[in-house]
């Protein structure tokens, strides 16, 4: 008998399976299984580094903060409640590690964004232009308040819900919505020209 294609699983069910899988990985990591912790690190390295970079700006500092957060999470793994999703729990540690590091390090002056750059420019087709756009976005992000930066990255880049971001940042859900809205308004100006031509 030919195998029938499986119907697509509802998102909620997929999320539940992923949560069970992560709870299992955490249990194995707590028991000392190196590979299980390795899988968790691989799975969350990207988001952890991006969130840390949104806070710190500098990629080396961000990697150090993300690494510290991962190791701190390893130590605290036994405290993780397996009934809750792992991502927000870990990202709260990451956000705190990045914020602490930013407070500790000497304050770096953020150069104000060049008005000419924010007002548009050529469509970034080439690598150079794309690089310039990335730089402009990073500068624009650096001008936003820290919480706003994290909120928009977690929502638009990483796909977390407002509720999950509220858990990560320890703020009310309504505040998350407001932060995402204001961050987007600022960042979309940069992308306007690119979007309209693309």
């Amino acid at each position, binding site marked *: 008998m030919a195998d029938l294609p499986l119907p697509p699983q509802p998102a909620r069910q997929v999320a539940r399976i992923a949560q069970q899988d992560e709870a299992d990985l955490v249990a194995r990591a707590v028991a000392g299984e190196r590979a299980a912790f390795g899988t968790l690190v691989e799975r969350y390295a990207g988001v952890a580094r991006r969130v840390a970079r949104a806070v710190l700006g500098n990629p080396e500092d961000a990697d150090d903060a993300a690494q510290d957060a991962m190791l701190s999470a390893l130590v605290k793994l036994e405290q993780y409640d397996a009934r809750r999703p792992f991502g927000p729990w870990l990202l709260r540690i990451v956000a705190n590690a990045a914020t602490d590091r930013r407070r500790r390090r000497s304050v770096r002056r953020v150069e104000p964004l060049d008005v000419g750059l924010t007002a548009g420019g050529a469509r970034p087709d080439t690598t150079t232009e794309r690089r310039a756009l990335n730089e402009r976005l990073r500068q624009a992000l650096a001008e936003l308040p820290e919480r706003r930066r994290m909120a928009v990255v977690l929502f638009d880049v990483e*796909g977390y819900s407002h509720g999950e971001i509220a858990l990560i940042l320890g703020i009310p859900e309504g505040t998350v919505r407001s932060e995402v809205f204001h961050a987007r308004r600022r960042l979309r100006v940069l992308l306007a020209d690119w979007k309209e031509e693309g």
Partner: protein
Amino acid sequence: MKDPLPFDHRPDLVLGRALREALDPGGAQLFTARVLARAEHARAASWDAVLARWARAGVAAALVVALAAGYFVGHATAGSPTTVRPTVSDVLIAPPAHPGEVEVVLASVIGNN
């Protein structure tokens, strides 16, 4: 470009993609390897710390046991004074515990003579 609707609950895919590219540092495998190496190092260091803690506790416990043993041995020795074996003269000079003993000794001496 229109302003976004306030509190739009859907992720902005274009902005998200652009931000992801702007924030992506690359070198994911290198980062993962570095974290795992640090985790191994931390684990080994924590075992060393545990063993060192156990060793310190072990030395302290051994000292306590040795002191306690010394105290009890000393106490027991002081409680039972050393028994001194009586010499022949002590036996002869000391008043007899049983009156008949001296007569027996004297009789045996006289008898031998």
